[in-house]
């Protein structure tokens, strides 16, 4: 019993789908951030899986890049959430919109 590439790819698809569901349904800014993280992880998983089965180091390299960029994105995203929270005392995206007007 060994793992095959297709297993990893299927898991990756599942994660992607969950992530997209989260992004489209959730209205809480922090939850949306979670969903985005899940999507990024799905992508990374794909990268590394293909890199392993087509023996090549490039996939891992790009996975590293994308993790680093995810970190940067989270930092900025959370800073935004903090600012929004401080202004509206809420973390709900819909609220942001309604309060602005």
């Amino acid at each position, binding site marked *: *019993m*060994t*793992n*095959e590439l*297709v*297993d990893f*790819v*299927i*898991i990756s*698809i*599942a*994660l*992607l*789908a*969950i992530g*997209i*569901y989260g992004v*489209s*349904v*959730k*209205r*809480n800014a*922090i*939850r949306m951030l*979670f969903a985005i*993280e*899940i999507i990024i*992880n799905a992508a*990374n*998983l794909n990268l*590394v*899986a293909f*890199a*392993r*089965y087509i023996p090549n*180091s*490039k996939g891992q*390299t790009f*996975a*590293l*890049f994308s*993790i*680093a960029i*995810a*970190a*940067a994105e*989270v*930092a*900025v995203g*959370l*800073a*935004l*959430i*903090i*600012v929004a929270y*401080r202004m509206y*005392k*809420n973390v*709900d995206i819909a*609220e942001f919109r309604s309060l602005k007007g």
Partner: protein
Amino acid sequence: MADAVFLAISVLTIGSAIAALELRSLIYGSISLMGTLGGVAGYFLLLDSPFVAMFQIAVYIGSIAVLILFTVMLVRRQLIFIKVEDKRRRYAGIGLMLIMMMSLGAIILSSGIKTIQTDAPPVDFRTIGEDFLTYYWPALILMALILASSVIGALTLARREDIENDQRTS
């Protein structure tokens, strides 16, 4: 077929990914997100890329999850438990998810990916470093710029201007 470890990790990852989005409490949601990230790190280990796996744990769980947790704790207690969403949207989202899964799965499964097999030894993690510094060095610089701009942007955004300076002796 996949082995038991793989199945265990799959259950952990998918389950906690769903839990991260659906649990009532944001704190538990963040803990579940940590589970997802850890599960993905487990896949990386199964794929013989320990460097990426450790990087994933150290960066994602060691710092990003900490930041998320910390921010969640700053949010007022009532808000941690609030879940605002309407039912129709939710069903639409689930439908979208299923459709995506089906279609992508069908595409992938029919694409002949099943035939890919390998017995090659895994790539040494040192080659990653080599890649960075030889062929992909512009990407490295670009990444430095991204990181730098993100830290600058985050700090500029997150500070508060609404407090007068005289309320606190500096």
